[in-house]
């Protein structure tokens, strides 16, 4: 393969932030192309700054490059200025590692984190000179795959993706490599042959091997067209994270990216059971990394990268059994010799324990602290199973302000099932109380409420719920905004309901949306996650042009026994479990965290013969959702054990 670097180089003197396209990261692999090795191009369909820190992509990059029979490089969506330059001279999409043309790889695999990147996938394929539709590709084209959370309903992308990996990718990429290697060795020119072989891999879904039948507007069946293709594709789950201590050499970019720090994943999965949270539902069960391994990964990572910040990542890091010990040993560790290392916990739970940890972590610079109560009233929080009592929330906020924080940010959703105006306005009420608490300690205390429209997601109890319309979300947001305006010290930010609408439409959409996505892309609708490029009219126009009804796809409540476009895929959760949880939700009944209470057989463990891997059998000091243990003031862990010198220098 020939590097495109010398053609690309002159263009880079004319574009914004050219360092995004040069590779050269510390930790980047030097690919060795040997005969028969399967070459992978791992693609993040958004900018380098957003894509580079993605841990999933980095993990697979390492795993593949460690294999003797595979090589992996990376690519990211070029920004519009470079795209224009590339198109002007017909320069194809390239890998950033060694600047190979994208179409020269055997496999291109996209990380799909959200619905709004779909059109970028098409754009990347087109830039790669690969036909965007599966049916137009032949054996000379790469196999186009995808993984990531948004692929749990991949149907809207069925026309464009040859294969989709469901669940944890660590094992899937190895199996796919084996299949592709065998196909390459066979010299076969029959693409269907390799697709059928891929469909045999546990966790791999090949959309073109299924026939979706619609009657009137409804999906009535979605069945395999060959007998050897599974009628239900099960997700893949790695049983024990300890077996996968990746990334071992996290990439250190030369230019600024969104999360420029060392990341160590402390556990995967979450069973707090928040009903809106697809990430929690589809990644069950909880699999903790052994605390010792976490420590080693931090030590080695800091030493190797020179980063002075480490983020301990998971869906709710304060729940990690060894959290205080790991933080203590990281802050106390002199052995790295790299100077002081700070720790950040990107996902904070709302309780005093968390505030105690945060206080220790943010000595000195206590500018802002963020909590996510998600809903404004206790009733609403019972519906969504985010069981934070008012007392807990106020105690946390009081803890924050009394310990020197000046700004508190609170995340909420609106457009939730059964939400009344009282619930919406409860957000302002709650914010007001928080400002009052803050003002006791600091005259300039400020509170910001950030409000996003709720998008019902597949494989959650809310998958039956009809999303609020743009108009209804706007009405609620303005209602709330008017109330917030009356409260000094309270600010409000919100997401554009039009973007929420597009996410919602795609999130539970079916294959017919493929034409819509293609039309939006052809009309120039790329980078839809970027407000300066997002245009809702492109989407509604494309829906109309294809004779599809926005109302039906987005706003309609689903029926109990309705066939969902993702029913032939299994994220582990029994549909009847989800239905019961949906009914419980409407009855405002909470559900406990099965990590510390008996299993209620949602299917995520029971279906696959695996179980939680949790070091501590008791809930953390902050209390467990629904166990009735609320963190009394006495339990406000002040965590002196974390002490380190103030003003580290």
């Amino acid at each position, binding site marked *: 393969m020939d590097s495109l670097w010398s053609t690309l180089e002159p263009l880079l003197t004319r574009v914004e932030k050219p*360092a995004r396209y040069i590779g050269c990261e*510390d930790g980047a692999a030097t690919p060795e192309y040997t005969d028969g090795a399967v070459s992978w191009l791992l693609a993040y369909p958004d900018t380098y700054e957003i894509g580079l820190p993605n841990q999933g992509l980095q993990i697979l990059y390492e795993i593949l490059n460690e294999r003797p029979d595979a090589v992996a490089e990376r690519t990211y969506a070029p920004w519009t200025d470079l795209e224009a330059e590339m198109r002007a001279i017909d320069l194809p999409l390239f890998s950033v590692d060694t600047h190979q043309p994208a179409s020269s790889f055997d496999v291109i695999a996209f990380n799909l984190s959200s619905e709004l990147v779909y059109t970028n996938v098409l754009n990347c394929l087109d830039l790669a000179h690969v036909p965007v539709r599966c049916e137009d590709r032949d054996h000379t084209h790469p196999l186009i795959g995808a993984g990531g959370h948004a692929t749990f309903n991949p149907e809207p992308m069925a026309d464009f993706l040859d294969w989709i990996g469901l669940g944890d990718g660590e094992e899937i990429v190895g199996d796919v490599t084996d299949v592709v290697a065998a196909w390459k060795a066979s010299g076969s020119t029959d693409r269907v042959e390799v697709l059928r072989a891929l469909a045999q891999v546990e966790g791999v879904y090949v959309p073109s091997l299924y026939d979706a039948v619609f009657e009137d507007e409804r999906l009535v069946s979605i069945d395999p067209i060959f007998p050897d293709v599974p009628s239900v594709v099960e997700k893949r789950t790695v049983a024990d994270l300890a077996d996968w201590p990746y990334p071992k050499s996290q990439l250190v970019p030369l230019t600024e990216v969104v999360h*420029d720090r060392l990341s160590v994943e402390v556990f995967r999965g979450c069973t707090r059971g928040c009903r809106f949270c697809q990430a929690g539902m589809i990644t069950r069960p909880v699999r903790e990394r052994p605390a010792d391994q976490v420590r080693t990964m931090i030590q080695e990572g800091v030493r190797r990268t020179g980063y002075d910040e480490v983020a301990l990542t998971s869906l709710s890091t304060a729940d990690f059994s060894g959290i205080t010990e790991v933080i203590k040993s990281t802050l106390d560790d002199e052995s790295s010799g790299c100077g002081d290392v700070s720790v950040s916990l990107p996902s904070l739970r709302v309780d005093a324990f968390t505030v105690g940890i945060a206080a220790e972590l943010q000595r000195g610079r206590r500018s802002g602290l963020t909590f996510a109560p998600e809903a404004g009233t206790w009733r609403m929080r019972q519906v969504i199973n985010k069981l934070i009592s008012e007392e807990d929330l106020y105690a946390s906020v009081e803890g924050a302000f009394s310990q020197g924080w000046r700004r508190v940010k609170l995340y909420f959703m609106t457009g939730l099932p059964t939400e009344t105006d009282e619930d919406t306005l409860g957000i302002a009420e709650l914010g007001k109380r928080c400002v009052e608490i803050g003002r006791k300690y600091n005259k300039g205390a400020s509170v910001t409420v950030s409000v996003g429209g709720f998008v019902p997601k597949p494989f959650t109890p809310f998958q039956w719920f009809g999303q609020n319309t743009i108009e209804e979300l706007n009405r609620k947001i303005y209602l709330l905004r008017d109330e917030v305006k009356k409260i000094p010290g309270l600010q409000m930010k919100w997401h554009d309901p039009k973007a929420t609408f597009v996410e919602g439409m795609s999130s539970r959409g079916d294959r017919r949306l493929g034409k819509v996505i293609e039309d939006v892309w052809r009309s120039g609708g790329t980078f839809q996650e970027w407000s300066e490029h997002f245009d809702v009219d492109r989407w509604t126009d494309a829906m109309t042009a294809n004779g599809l009804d926005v109302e039906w796809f987005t706003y309609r409540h689903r029926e109990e026994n309705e066939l969902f476009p993702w029913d032939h895929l299994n994220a582990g959760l029994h549909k009847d479990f989800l239905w019961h949880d949906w009914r419980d939700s409407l009855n405002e009944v909470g559900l406990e965290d099965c990590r510390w209470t008996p299993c209620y057989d949602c299917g995520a463990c029971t279906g696959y013969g695996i179980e939680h891997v949790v070091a501590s059998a008791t809930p953390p000091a902050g209390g467990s959702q629904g166990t009735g243990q609320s963190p009394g003031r006495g339990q406000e862990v002040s965590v002196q054990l974390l002490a380190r010198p103030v003003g580290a*220098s």
Partner: protein
Amino acid sequence: MTLPRKPQVRLQYSKLGKVRFTSHRDMARIWERSVRRAKLPIAYSEGFSPRAKLSFGLALPTVFESVAEYADLTFDEPVPAEGLPELLTPLLPVGVDVVAATELEGKVESLQECVMATEWSLFVDGDLAEVGAWARDLLAADSLEITRERKGKTRVDDVREALLDARVQPIATDAPVIGASTEIVVNLATKPRALRPLEFLGINAPPHTFVLGRRLHQFISPVGARRDPLDVGAAQATHDLSRAS
């Protein structure tokens, strides 16, 4: 009471190849990480978000190469200059090579303060004779006006004083630059306000387009003495500077 001065080392390094596309700010972060990895006792600033004490002098524009970049490192305890190039180079990106180091003694002006002029090699696509004539006209002119934008306001500056010297020549055959045919070696003053190489290239309807630029030297006062920032009195560079090219 004044605190005793902390020990300082001045380094010279290159920035060549792909890494030229990183910004000045990017390089500062890269240096911070590398210094931590080298476990050097770098000093930190006071305050809530302490920063490693590294200073770099005049920013090299993104996309330019250089064989003459400098950094001053301040340490909490003395660090011998000897050995620093070998220690740091492997910890820096490909194309960034530390070529010399010297300990700074006594009161030394910062790089920002002491650099008076810079020398550049600018590779352009343009006819040798035409570019030569263009450069001669510039040097013969009494005034050279350019329009600059600053803080949203445009103003016209006479930059003739800042153009110290320019020479136009064919590109050496043993080091071709793809897309370029002509090399301009130019000396530009940095005080009172630096004339930047791209500003220089844009004066008076230029008969060329820019392909690649490389900073060759930074000179400290007096102008014309061609003293480089490592030449700070008694202290001697511990490395042979010829490695820079």
